[in-house]
């Protein structure tokens, strides 16, 4: 006999206490498609964690979803194929929870909190981990305070016109291949640039994504050094619908842990359309009546109870925050579909990405006319507020005149000037992905553009000039201009005068 096994048996026998007690059990009467119908367990709670014993004697976790008169509809969370009719089911008396703690930072886990990154086991010391329920009530109204600190995405168009505050829920919505994930990823990458505030812990939740995409995202985060403050929760397309359904709640529980510790957290749900699809699949398999677009009746509550957990807590409760960036994928720009309208109404604003803009080369393809942030402006830094105040207006005027661009030569000088300004500002707002800018650099670039310092410059040169301008300021005016803006978040008349001088100096040096 295996010597190790004998030794293990001896060790286990030493501490073994045989306790026989009457346990509540049930029996699987139907199994298939990740769903098990269970008879018995008449006192099971809704969302209770059940353990189904498979033929190999292993306990397969499942959640009690449907409590019917004589059966329970349970969703199997792991290798559903091994669950067979007649299998014994035990109740646990607890709802599903996840182990959370600081050790999660830098790791990739599945929705049950199990590591999937080959970096070894988590929580060797049980005292390092807390148990957080996946389904938890959102913080109450009295425990919250208004959003008052910004979260910088490093994207000029967003930080200037659609500012996001810590504790806000800002939806990123758009068709496929419009750069939704890129914006979320930039927001994560940029957190290390925001040195004026404590770096928030970022949680990226991948729901129904290709495993190759998740691997690529993890690689990008690792290369940029962002995994030092990021946790990735992955339920890829190959994962069962049950895990895809749980992933956002697991990510949220991790975020709540850090929020309860008084820290700031940023969570990206990529994406909630696939999450809704997974829930629809489960609901139909559980024979719940389908409603609009075959979604079940509680599809709104599915997302509202998740997004309501994002909050800014008051000082008495530690002052932590959880900012949520849910992503929704639309079909052919249809924002009036069922799930997009639901999530738009739940969140505090949306960043709307348009495939037409994307194909025109406007990247990020943010439609500033349809994008809005309902609470973020209160949290915007004074410097940005001062500089970017008229940006939205100028772009709106440009949009009105955009149809006349092709007749530009026949227009009056004022209209022509507005069109040119609009084109210049559009060019300035273009930004490559994975190149988020620190807030102070955004402020100086926008100041120069809005102040008319780049006027008359050929559009093809704007990008290059912008890069040179930033390099110039980094080299010669870091301590005098960039750092004061970064540290204070203000843009005083003194700073403005200094920046004006620096711009003039730069233009002279470049013969502009």
């Amino acid at each position: 006999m295996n010597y190790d096994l004998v030794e293990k048996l001896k060790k286990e026998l030493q501490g073994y206490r045989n306790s026989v007690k009457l346990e509540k059990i049930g029996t699987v009467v139907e199994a298939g498609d990740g769903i098990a119908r269970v008879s018995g367990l008449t006192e099971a709670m809704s969302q209770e964690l059940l353990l189904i014993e498979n033929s190999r004697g292993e306990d397969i976790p499942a959640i009690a979803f449907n409590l019917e008169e004589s059966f329970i509809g349970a969703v199997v969370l792991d290798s559903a194929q091994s669950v067979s009719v007649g299998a014994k089911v035990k109740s646990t008396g607890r709802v599903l929870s996840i182990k959370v703690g600081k050790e999660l930072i830098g790791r990739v886990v599945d929705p049950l909190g199990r590591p999937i990154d080959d970096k070894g086991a988590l929580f060797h010391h049980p005292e390092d981990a807390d148990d957080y329920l996946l389904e938890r009530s959102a913080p109450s109204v009295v425990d919250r305070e208004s959003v008052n600190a910004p979260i910088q995405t490093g994207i000029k168009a967003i930080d200037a016109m659609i500012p996001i505050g810590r504790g806000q829920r800002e939806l990123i919505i758009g068709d496929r291949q419009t750069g939704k994930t890129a914006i979320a990823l930039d927001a994560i990458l940029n957190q290390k640039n925001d040195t004026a505030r404590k770096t928030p812990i970022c949680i990226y939740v991948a729901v129904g994504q290709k495993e190759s995409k998740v691997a690529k995202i993890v690689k990008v985060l690792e290369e940029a050094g962002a995994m030092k403050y990021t946790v990735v929760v992955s339920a890829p397309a190959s994962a069962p619908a049950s895990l895809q359904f749980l992933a956002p709640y697991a990510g949220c529980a991790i975020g709540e842990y850090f929020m309860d510790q008084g820290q700031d957290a940023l969570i990206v749900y990529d994406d909630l359309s696939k999450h809704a699809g997974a829930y629809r699949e489960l609901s139909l398999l559980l024979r719940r009546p389908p409603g609009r677009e075959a979604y079940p009746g509680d599809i709104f509550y599915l997302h509202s109870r998740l997004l309501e957990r994002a909050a800014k807590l008051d000082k008495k409760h530690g002052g932590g925050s959880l900012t949520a960036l849910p992503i929704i994928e639309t079909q052919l720009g249809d924002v009036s579909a069922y799930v997009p309208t639901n999530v738009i109404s739940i969140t505090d604003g949306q960043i709307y990405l348009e495939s037409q803009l994307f194909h025109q080369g406007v990247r990020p393809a943010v439609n500033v006319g349809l994008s809005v942030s309902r609470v973020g402006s209160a949290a915007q830094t004074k410097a940005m507020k001062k500089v970017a105040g008229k940006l939205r207006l100028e772009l709106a005027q440009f949009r009105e005149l955009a149809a006349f661009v092709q007749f530009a030569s026949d227009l009056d000088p004022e209209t022509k000037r507005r069109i040119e300004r609009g084109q210049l500002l559009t060019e300035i707002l273009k930004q490559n992905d994975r190149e988020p800018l620190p807030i102070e650099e955004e402020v100086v670039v926008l100041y120069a553009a809005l102040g008319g310092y780049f006027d008359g410059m050929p559009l093809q040169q704007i990008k290059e000039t912008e890069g040179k301008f930033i390099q110039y300021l980094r080299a010669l005016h870091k301590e005098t201009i960039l750092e004061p803006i970064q540290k204070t978040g203000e843009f005083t008349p003194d700073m403005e005068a200094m920046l004006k001088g620096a711009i003039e100096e730069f233009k002279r040096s470049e013969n502009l």
Partner: protein
Amino acid sequence: MYARAFADVYEAAPENVRNMFTKRLFDVIDKNGDWSRAERIIREIERFITKKQGGREVQLEFARPVPLALINELKKRFRAVDRIDVSVNTSLVAGVRIVIDGERELDNSMARKLKDMFKKEL
């Protein structure tokens, strides 16, 4: 469905017509081509009738055949209306497992003890 309908009617019917109901049940099963499920239907009918009479369905599982005297001794511990089913389940390794109404279990088998020893917390 068969079991519930039959148990309801059978209980309410006078003694002299009960045989007729039984015959009709088998006629319906035959007509619907449900003979493959007949065993399960009969088991369910037994369960319904036992429940209606206030009894419990008790399953006694032993790891190996045990003397009849021991089984009878155990049966005496239950009421007359209880339906007791005795079977041998070698996967228990040793000991006994008692299941009442398919909902409550008293597992004193070696298999359970071994599993407890090597159990990993979820």
